[in-house]
């Protein structure tokens, strides 16, 4: 049996209108609709493909956060994961990566997962930290930014392609157990089938107490969150499509001779 863990984060829809909370140290989370972090969808898809290939594979999804993140765990189950677990930390979504990794590491340390997936980054906090930290805390080899992967037939190792800058790819081999963090483009996640959605609804999600790894100091602290300053002043063109199109053409015509004479 191959045991796979997928770490899933609940994030607000990126098109949300974000406001700063009263304390000024996070975005206001009330009234935001949530989704599974996009990068974690790629992880789940990759895990499900391994299950299709090797059959005796068990996929567990874990998420750290308040009760409402059960919604995203259910979505992950509907994508094809077998079971879920929620580490019940009301502050789980605001906490620094080291603290989140510490909670997952402590819980996972005796579960003997063969392969752990994280997303390259969370869409809301964009830290790129949690995966590699979790690997370090569990003393696992790790590769980030993977855009292709192959587990060997004997399931003893995994060969990953990491995407570097400028179209260069690095091939790296990790002995299992290992952790990988997934970059977009590795696959096209499937839509959940109706039968899977119904099945997922019935699965009970165990609620686990938040226990950190012993002896770890806290990590990064967020002081203040605010709206970014604009670099230049953006002039917004107002009116209906035709009016705006006309106004826009006036502006860009003055800039340079841009129109083809054909």
């Amino acid at each position, binding site marked *: 049996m191959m045991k796979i863990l997928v770490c899933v984060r609940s994030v607000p829809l990126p098109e949300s209108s974000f406001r700063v909370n009263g304390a000024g140290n996070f975005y206001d989370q009330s009234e935001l609709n949530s989704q599974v972090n996009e990068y974690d969808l790629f992880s789940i898809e990759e895990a499900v493909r391994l299950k299709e290939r090797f059959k005796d594979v068990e996929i567990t999804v874990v998420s750290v956060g308040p009760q409402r993140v059960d919604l995203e765990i259910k979505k992950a189950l509907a994508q094809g994961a077998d079971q879920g677990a929620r580490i019940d930390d009301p502050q789980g979504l605001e906490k620094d990566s080291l603290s989140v990794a510490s909670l997952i590491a402590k819980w996972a340390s005796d579960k003997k997962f063969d392969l752990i997936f994280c997303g390259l980054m969370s869409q809301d906090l964009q830290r790129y930290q*949690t995966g590699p930290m979790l690997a370090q805390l569990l003393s696992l080899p790790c590769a980030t930014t993977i855009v292709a992967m192959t587990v060997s037939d004997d399931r003893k190792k995994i060969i990953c392609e990491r995407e570097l800058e400028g179209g260069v790819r690095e091939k790296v081999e990790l002995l299992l157990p290992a952790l990988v963090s997934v970059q977009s483009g590795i696959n096209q996640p499937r839509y959940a089938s109706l039968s899977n959605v119904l099945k997922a609804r019935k699965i009970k999600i165990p609620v686990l107490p938040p226990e950190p790894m012993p002896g770890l100091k806290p990590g990064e602290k967020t002081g203040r969150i605010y709206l*970014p300053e604009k*670099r230049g002043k953006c002039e917004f063109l107002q009116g209906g499509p035709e009016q705006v199109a006309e106004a826009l053409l006036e502006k860009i015509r003055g800039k340079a001779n841009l129109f083809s004479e054909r």
Partner: protein
Amino acid sequence: MSGKIIVIAEQFDGKIKPVSLELAGFGKEISQTTGGELIGVALGFPALALAREFARASGLKVIGLEHPNLETYNADSFVQALSKFIPGQNPDYILIPHTAIGWDFAPRLAAALNGSCLSVITGLKMDGRLRFLRPICSGKLMAEVEPAPDTVAVITVNPGAARAIKPDAPGQAEFVKMDLAETATKNLGYTEAKRGALDLTKAEVIVAAGRGLGKVENLELVKTLAGLFDKSAIGASRAVVDAGWLPYEHQVGQTGQTVHPKLYLALGISGAIQHLVGMTQSELIVAVNTDPKAAIFNVAHLGVVQDLIKFLPALIEKIKEIK
């Protein structure tokens, strides 16, 4: 804590990458407020030549860390070497480029040193104490982050966050041989993506397609529009390339091409930092997006809050009228 700032250079194929000099520039900004000493580090095999190159280009004193396992990048070996070397230096700040290599080992190093990791840093602020800036929520918000008290800060600095350092004179270089154990990670080498024929840097007008187009069929509108401009090319966000709507050679951004056309039309592109680093040098940036809060409007000169599906046909008609 000694106030010391360690700048870890990135190398590829035995050459120091330019991003390392920006990193040193960022280090200098920190030291100008804290007064801390700046020291460069380069990992490799052999290490002395690398250390010399970085010392010459940056003006910093540079220490090379040498071991055969460091010849090409290997996360485990990097973390091993640095967690042996760093404690003796007792720095306050460790700077690493926010690149696919940097973000691969920096968080692990921070965990190994029980320090704080501050990632994707695009700037700093000094008001009583140093704070570091990271764009979050697709660039719609900024976060000010800082290390936990009395911990070393491992900071990944975003490319473009600082100017390259200008050395007054070359720095001193030395190297130490490291004693490293075998690892469960093996670097199997590098491959280069096939370069497409498309060179976006030659275009004067780039009409760039984003996920906001909704579906691949709507690309036709983008193609028609681009066809109406002289010396134009079609650009794309990564989301569009990932979805298979356009091949990789169209991608603009951190993992695509860096462009600076006279006119950049961002159509249904949200303005994620990884896209922005590839196009903010454009002379005139026009953004069309239904979301007035989209981060693309923070860099755009002209903003159009419209549904592309209605707006693009109107724009195409108007251009045809003038011609």
